[in-house]
Structures are given as C-alpha cells and as structure tokens.
C-alpha cells in the first residue's frame, strides 16, 4: 500500500483529462498500486458524470442520427474479455509503453550505479524515463529547473525526507534538491517525469550538467 500519493489537484486534472499526458500516465501507473486513489478517482469520475448530465444540451440534427445509424453496420459491437483487476504487477500503461519488460529496454548508463531508459509518450513538454539504481546506489545531489514526479516501481529509495517503496508517488517542485539513494537490499526502478532538465549540484558531478538534456516526446 503506497504512503505517498498524487494530491487532489493531480487526480482531478487526471480525471478531467487536463493533465499533461506524461503526468497523467504516471498517475495512471500509481493507481495500479493504490486502492485509495482508485476510490478517489471513481468519486471524481462521478463528479464529471453529474456535471455532464447537467451540461446545456445542443441541438443535434436528425441527419446526424441517420448518418450514425448508417455507420453501425460497419461497426459491429465488440466482445470483451473481462479487464484484469488492478494489482501490484507492472502497471498496464507501462507495459504498453515499454513493449515488453524492464529487461527488454535500452538502458543508458549514466554512472556505475545509475542507468536511464527513455520511453516515448508523445508529450512534447515532458520527459518520461525509467531510472535503474543499483542496490545502495546514489543519484548525485540535484535540483530541478522544473517539476519532477517520481513513482517507485520496484525496490525503493530514500532521501533526506523519507523512505519510498513500490507505488509511492512523489512530486518535487522546481528548486527543491535531493540525493536519492536506493535501499541496500535490492535494485530500485522508478519512473521520473520531468518538464525541465535536472541540475547536479555537487562540484564532482557538475561536469555532467551539459550532458543532461531534457528529452521530451
């Protein structure tokens, strides 16, 4: 059960369809782990439906009805296998974006302990990437020119503020700095969504900054 959740603004925007795609995909992945947020989302969906029922109706022509009816024969009803219940496995949305499993991805080595794999969501304003941190490995102290969402997928990590485990959703605003360290017991995989590049702070890692460019899309 995750302990860190997207706040209600994130969930509302996710349900209303106004959240940028990469962030929304990250919220969707969190829902896979989080029963409580699924319940909130279901309530927010009811709010949308209640507003939809009261929206000012617009006149629709009979012609549009006829055109739609004429198309029905080409669009036979589909039959569905029951959707799988959400569970603790890799979120469906990620399986989709990865076309396989973590092992099938191209991982780019950044340091001995850290590798990154970029996934394409098509969101022009956000980078969507997986971070693989070896057990006990540390991501050098960095801050952000923009906002960062992190979702733990496997293992866990800690920083000055706490310990984070599978399903935990963290939001850091521009300017906050941290140096996450993977737990000692196992490798950590997390998903990071950024709208601006990281900035490494320590003198030993500052040379990396020119190489860390945002890769949206």
């Amino acid at each position, binding site marked *: 059960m995750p302990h860190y959740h997207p706040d209600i603004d994130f969930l509302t925007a996710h349900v209303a369809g106004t959240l940028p795609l990469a962030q929304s995909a990250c919220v*969707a992945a969190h829902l896979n782990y989080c029963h409580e947020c699924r319940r909130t989302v279901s309530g927010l969906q009811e709010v949308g439906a209640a507003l939809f029922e009261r929206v000012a109706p617009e006149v629709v022509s009979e012609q549009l009805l006829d055109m739609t009816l004429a198309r029905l024969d080409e669009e036979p009803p589909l039959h569905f296998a029951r959707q799988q219940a959400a569970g603790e496995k890799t979120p469906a949305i990620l399986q989709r974006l990865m076309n396989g499993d973590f092992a099938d991805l191209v991982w780019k080595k950044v340091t001995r302990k850290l590798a990154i794999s970029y996934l394409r969501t098509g969101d022009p304003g956000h980078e969507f990437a997986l971070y693989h941190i070896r057990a006990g490995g540390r991501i050098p102290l960095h801050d952000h020119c923009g906002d960062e969402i992190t979702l733990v997928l496997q293992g866990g990590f800690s920083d000055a503020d706490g310990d984070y485990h599978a399903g935990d959703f963290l939001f850091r605003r521009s300017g906050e700095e941290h140096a996450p360290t993977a737990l000692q017991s196992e490798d950590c995989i997390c998903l990071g969504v950024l709208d601006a590049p990281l900035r490494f702070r320590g003198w030993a890692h500052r040379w990396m900054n020119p190489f860390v460019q945002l890769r949206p899309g």
Partner: protein
Amino acid sequence: MSPSGSDRQDSSIATPRGDEWSDCLLAIARSADRAAFTRLFRHFAPLIKGFALAGSRLSANHADELVQEVMIKVWQKAAAFDPNKAAASTWIYTIARNCRTDLFRRLQKFDTPLAAEDVAPDGADEEPFEQIQSRRNGQRVRELMAGLPVDQAQILAKVYMEGKSHAEAAAELDLPLGTVKSRVRLALQKLQIQMTA
C-alpha cells in the same frame, strides 16, 4: 457520512435498478438493438455536443464528429458496460471525455502511442463491495451537487466540462491560482470525495 445516512440508501442501490439508459445499453449488447441505440442517441447526443462545445475549442463540425464517434463507441463497447459498476451516464461520460481528449490531440497533431483510454480507462474492475460503494457515491454526488455554491459549481464546470487546467481557469476568471485550487477542493469536500493527499 453518518452510518444511519448510508444505511438508508443501501436497499435501493445494492441491486442496480433497471434504469432506462442501462437497459438500452444491455439491449445493444444482447441483440445489437438499433431502437435502443436510437433512444440513447436522442438523449445523450445533445449532451455530448454540449460537452464538446463547452470549452469553445471545437467547431460545430468537430462537435458533430465527436458525437458520432462517441455514439459509435457506445454501440461497439456496450458489451463492456456493467450496470453493477457504474450508471450508464457515468460510462458514457468517460467515453466522451476520452474521445474529446483524443480529438484535441489529433487536431494539435500530437503524435502519441497512447489513446486517452489507455491512460484513463472507463472502469477498472473492483471488488463487488467497491462497486456498490461507487454507485452509492455516484448517487450522493448527484444529490449534493445541487447544493454547491455558484462559484464552486462554476469552477468545477470549467475544469470538467470546458477542459480547462486550474491555471487556465484562474486566468479566465481573473482569480489567483490558489483561489481556484481551494474552490475546487472545497467543492470536492462538499461532494464528500475522499482525499488521500
């Protein structure tokens, strides 16, 4: 949230009532019933069109295109509708929302491997208890909606119906972003939406 309050509603919702729109969807799923489809169309098409035009980002032609697309999805996917999980209008709303998001992205030449439906599916399976809970929430939300102060209802409509981000809503209403966020929160509290964070 008093126990007596929720007890009172139990009996009416534990077994979904055969409401007209759910029956139409079930008839489509059972026997590709075109008369049932026509009834649904006459009721929901004007709402979908209203929803399409609410943000005033779509032309009338695109709004008609959206109506067709949503109604054909409803026809095709009727077998996936489960009256135990959601009201017909909730199910149709989520389809309309996803189709609208996809249409916006197509118009912006947004090249993505994801459909809105992949990101926000029209209903994940939950335990039977959760389903009852969620139908009960749906009814409560509709009852409480009537009592919302105008300014709060207005913001919710901007966000949900017009598809405005909190920041866009703030700019349009000439309010600080913080005010918009707190009005949304207050409204959701009044509607008794549970918040984890």
